[in-house]
């Protein structure tokens, strides 16, 4: 861990305060049921962020994150676990939080593809679905250990995604995106007409079991009944932390630099020895692998898979999370996933209009803050490092 020595405590404080405040806000938001109270809370939250921005309070927070990311990352993990503890018996909230965490993992995958390598993938939900279907099929027909299954789900997504490599490598920009849209539409149709995979009704997915520990049984510790979703919550968190570390290290390495270089100017990058094909393939496969792993676990969390869960519209939601959060900034992805997943669930008035809400949100962001809520800062290979 690179600590910045003398100003240690001071640079940590704004970031820590931000993490604590956001967590407290989130807990209250998840707790409140009254619709009017929720609207008031959301308005308060938006107002507070705008006011903090006006008062220049967000700058020290950003500085704090760029200097002391490791410490703040640990704090963020503790804060998220605290949310789990507060809602230890609430199935609904824990399921929601699991979804947020796994969507974050999937969007981190997209962020490698689009944010770094510039390959826009409009089939994110399809690769998420490949993971979930892998879990369903393997559970039905084999006794593959479930931890291994997560790996297989990710590999399946990467493998099937490699079918798209040739067209994606041969086209640039928008055209590559169109290829992925075609794949997303084909994928859903394929699932619907395929009886082995359950057709439109889909399949059941058995819950996760690791070394005899069944994730679908409620836990009792010292007379306190805990929701079984807590198992999945902890598992999801572990995967998210791993994904976060991978994405962070990737960005802060020569590979991250290669991906940026080829996104920004393929010709110039090629003139300096960069193997464009190799790095585009690496980014695309690695991204799909992360999406697939998240999808596999998500399939086991919700207990069933069906084609309607993995439509083109769901892929758009993943892309809108990326645009909203700040392309290439993993913290932005996490914040945006919280907003996009939790707000429509809590605010039932807008539930039916949620796609309209996403569309409006993306347009507002692109108009007024094109780099997203938390724009990606200039690369620092080691936080706090100084020449």
């Amino acid at each position: 861990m690179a600590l910045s020595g003398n100003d240690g405590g001071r640079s940590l404080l704004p970031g820590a305060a931000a993490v604590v405040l956001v967590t407290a806000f989130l807990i209250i938001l998840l707790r409140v049921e009254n619709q009017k109270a929720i609207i008031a809370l959301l308005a308060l939250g938006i107002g507070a962020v705008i006011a903090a921005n006006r008062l220049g309070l967000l700058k020290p927070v950003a500085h704090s994150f760029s200097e002391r990311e490791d410490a703040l990352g640990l704090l963020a993990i503790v804060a998220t676990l605290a949310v789990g503890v507060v809602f230890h018996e609430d199935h609904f909230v824990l399921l929601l939080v699991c979804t947020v965490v796994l969507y974050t993992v999937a969007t981190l995958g997209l962020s490698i593809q689009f944010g770094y390598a510039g390959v826009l993938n409009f089939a994110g939900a399809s690769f998420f679905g490949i993971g979930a279907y892998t879990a369903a099929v393997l559970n039905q027909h084999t006794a593959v250990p479930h931890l291994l299954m997560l790996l297989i789900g990710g590999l399946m997504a990467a493998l099937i995604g490699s079918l798209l490599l040739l067209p994606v490598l041969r086209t640039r920009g928008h055209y590559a995106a169109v290829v992925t849209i075609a794949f997303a539409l084909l994928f859903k149709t394929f699932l619907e007409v395929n009886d082995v995979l359950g057709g439109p009704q889909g399949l059941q997915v058995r819950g996760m079991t690791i070394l005899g520990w069944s994730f679908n049984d409620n836990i009792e510790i010292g007379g306190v009944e805990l929701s079984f979703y807590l198992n999945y919550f902890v598992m999801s968190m572990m995967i998210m932390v791993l994904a976060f570390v991978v994405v962070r290290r990737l960005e802060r390495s020569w590979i991250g630099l290669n991906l940026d270089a080829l996104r920004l100017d393929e010709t110039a990058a090629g003139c300096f020895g960069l193997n464009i094909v190799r790095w585009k393939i690496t980014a695309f496969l690695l991204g799909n692998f992360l999406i697939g792993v998240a999808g596999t676990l998500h399939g086991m969390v919700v207990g069933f898979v069906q084609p309607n869960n993995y439509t083109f519209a769901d892929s758009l939601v993943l892309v809108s999370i990326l645009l909203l959060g700040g392309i290439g900034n993993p913290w932005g992805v996490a914040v945006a996933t919280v907003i996009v997943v939790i707000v429509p669930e809590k605010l039932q008035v807008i539930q039916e209009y949620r796609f309209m809400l996403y569309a409006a949100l993306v347009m507002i962001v692109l108009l007024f803050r094109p780099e997203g809520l938390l724009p990606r800062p200039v690369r620092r290979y080691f936080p706090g490092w100084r020449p």
Partner: protein
Amino acid sequence: MTQNPAPREEMPLVLEARGLTRRFGGVLALDHLDFDVAQGEIVGLIGPNGSGKTTFFNVITGIYWADAGHVSLDGAEITRATPQAIYHAGVSRTFQRSRLSLPLSIFDNIMIGNHKRLNQGLWFNLVRRQAFKAEFEESFAKAQALVEVFDPPLARRMLEPVAGLPMIDRRRIEICRALISRPQLLLLDEPSAGMTHEETSQLMDDILEVRKRLDGLSIVIVEHEMGVIERITNRCVVLNFGRKIAAGTFAEIAADRMVQEAYLGLQ
């Protein structure tokens, strides 16, 4: 020009192009061009707009393939090599329209040019962070030392994005990006474009200074400012319509009737 050493004809050839031809539709952008560069030489490549100077660079660096002819670097054939292979063989370039990655830092931009000296392994980059840090710190010191030759204040801003820098600094960084991998041959495509007279002259001082330290570096420079050509080149080649119309020292070609016609439109 006393500060230009005489062309070192006894030095071995770094670049050897023979009969290089490139067509775009009906246009002959390069027409049976022979072009040699000896080790340690600075060669000026001049000619009116559209005479094939940039096409020549693009063919040498593998962006375009030659329709006919051969190019060899240090005796090894590179005619049909990819841009990647040619970079690895020791040719670096700058671009006429500065092609830096603007959102990236100065350091990042220079490291793009250092590709072949950096460990690109997935395991090394993601897992062996201590080893990576050592390589990072070493590379940082090297890049900073190189920028310092050009402009010491700029060397203290290595982690700032390039987007906010003035043209002269961007040119400096582009040249550093081309030099960091210690190439044998540097191709400079109009380094003075978009800069004032004073800035250009300053940049040329820097280039001469760097060359002193990188012994044996050969340079081909495309330039419209004759003052620059006169000052830094050992030898010049003049192109018109893709063909070599004159070659020699600056004084010789400046006196050449065909050059005057092509350039100045003298009747």
